């Protein structure tokens, strides 16, 4: 008897453990539920803290079989104070959770894929697959290679070159679709219906999504087993934000942290903002959009977990914001120049929205606030092209350097001015 199983999120029907993501009875999504009574007996901060510094230290709270042995350390990324970014916002208690350095492929998607592939193995699949806006493609391709699965990856044809290359290099079979992510996604639902593959975000989705909880577990543990006042989370399909909330709730339920309300804030790009729009207008369901934004990892116009993301935000007393593409780029640069963290467009969205939330007094300066940075800037360098000029080379002579230094001192902007306006 396993300590977890699938249950319908709406009608509550139990489905045991199998590769499926929807309830046949009411077509609603399935969710992994746990025997919390039993877990309360075994789980403690000491038990977790004594384990290796990776996401598997929370194995008790993940859908993993008892005989699962991880062969890849994933997660446990740094959480650190961001005083200089905070200063820009007039804040004093701001933290960065930096999944730009999540291993092995530099995004939080490594977490969900790790859990999905553990279950793919359990269910006997030899091939794994996914629809992806890029980061998931990288994570599935890399971990499939490491775990000995064949991989089929479906992406919109216009993805950033670094994300395409960062999938192909692992030997995955890449299928480029001439269409939007939402079309790729719909196609994958149909393909998953016909092929006996482990689609991490289709038939393995309930297991996969649980991996996101480790972001929330880590935030709490790294704050010294306490919850923050606020988290700001980027939203595409809307799954991560609901799972961070689930993680906090589980920690409270298991007595690992003191109960306290955490306000959950969602961040989107204005060019693809179905969830933030619904939050602002008071709707409980999303109106799908056709995405038009440089934040391609967030460009999902018909977010599957939109309804639950809206609910999570509203019930927590949080809010959702969205920012222009221009603000996304400015925010990428701001985070890099203040804290030395180079994030991708999704991180720019999070930072840009956080600024707005402080301006609106929805987040107060001294509250403990964590920004979830979910991906690495090296994958989306194209959005910065044209923003930095190549410096004229000088000859390898001290005199030439001294002259350059002189000019730089007299006119700091000549060297320091990096942002093209």
């Amino acid at each position: 008897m396993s300590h977890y199983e699938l249950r319908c999120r709406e009608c509550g029907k139990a489905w045991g453990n199998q590769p499926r993501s929807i309830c046949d009875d009411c077509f609603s999504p399935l969710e992994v539920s746990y025997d919390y009574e039993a877990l309360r007996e075994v789980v403690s901060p000491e038990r977790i803290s004594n384990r290796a510094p990776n996401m598997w230290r929370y194995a008790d709270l993940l859908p993993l079989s008892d005989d699962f042995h991880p062969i890849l350390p994933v997660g446990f990324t740094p959480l650190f104070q961001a005083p200089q970014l905070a200063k820009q916002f007039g804040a004093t208690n701001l933290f960065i959770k930096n999944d730009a350095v999540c291993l092995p492929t530099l995004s939080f998607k490594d977490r969900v894929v790790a859990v999905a592939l553990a279950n793919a193995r359990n269910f006997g699949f030899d091939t794994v697959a996914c629809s992806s806006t890029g980061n998931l493609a990288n994570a599935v391709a890399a971990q499939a290679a490491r775990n000995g699965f064949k991989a089929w990856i479906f992406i919109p044809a216009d993805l950033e070159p670094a994300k395409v290359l960062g999938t192909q290099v692992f030997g995955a079979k890449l299928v480029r679709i001439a269409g939007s992510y939402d079309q790729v996604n719909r196609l994958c639902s149909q393909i998953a219906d016909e092929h006996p593959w482990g689609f991490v975000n289709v038939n393995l989705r309930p297991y996969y999504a649980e991996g996101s909880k480790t972001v929330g577990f880590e935030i709490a543990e790294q704050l010294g087993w306490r919850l923050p006042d606020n988290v700001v989370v980027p939203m595409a399909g809307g799954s991560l934000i609901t799972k961070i909330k689930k993680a906090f709730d589980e920690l409270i339920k298991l007595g690992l942290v003191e109960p306290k309300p955490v306000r959950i804030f969602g961040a989107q790009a204005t060019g693809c903002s179905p969830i933030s729009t619904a939050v602002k207008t008071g709707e409980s369901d999303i109106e799908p959009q056709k995405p038009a934004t440089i934040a391609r990892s967030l460009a999902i116009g018909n977010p599957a977990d939109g309804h639950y993301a809206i609910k999570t935000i509203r019930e927590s007393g949080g809010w959702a914001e969205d920012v222009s593409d221009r603000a996304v780029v400015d925010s990428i640069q701001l985070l890099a120049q203040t804290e030395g963290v180079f994030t991708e467009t999704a991180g720019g969205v999070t930072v840009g929205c956080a600024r707005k939330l402080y301006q609106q007094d929805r987040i107060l300066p001294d509250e403990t606030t964590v920004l979830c940075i979910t991906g690495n800037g090296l994958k989306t360098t194209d959005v910065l092209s044209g923003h930095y000029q190549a410096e004229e080379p000088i000859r390898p002579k001290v005199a030439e350097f001294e002259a350059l230094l002189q000019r730089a001192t007299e006119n700091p902007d000549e060297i320091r001015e990096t942002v093209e306006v």
Partner: protein
Amino acid sequence: MAITVQIPTALRRLTGGNGKVSCSAANVGELLSVLDQQFPELKPHLRDEAGQIRRFLNIYVNEEDIRFLGGSDYAFQDGDEILLVPSIAGGCA
């Protein structure tokens, strides 16, 4: 209007194994009524207790989300191919 509807595998046990249904309907409302009549067991899977289309059921017309075509007001054209797809999956974040 003569249209065809693709039934997802999960629901084919309720349509006698039928994966493709041809029928005549002017819009989504009529289509669901036709399906209700033809496959009474299918009805509770597509509609909630209030008779509304279930929240997590997405309907596509010729591969376009029907919500972009006017939703329930969209008038089917001859030869339209309708897809019923559960709302699952998500790319990032």
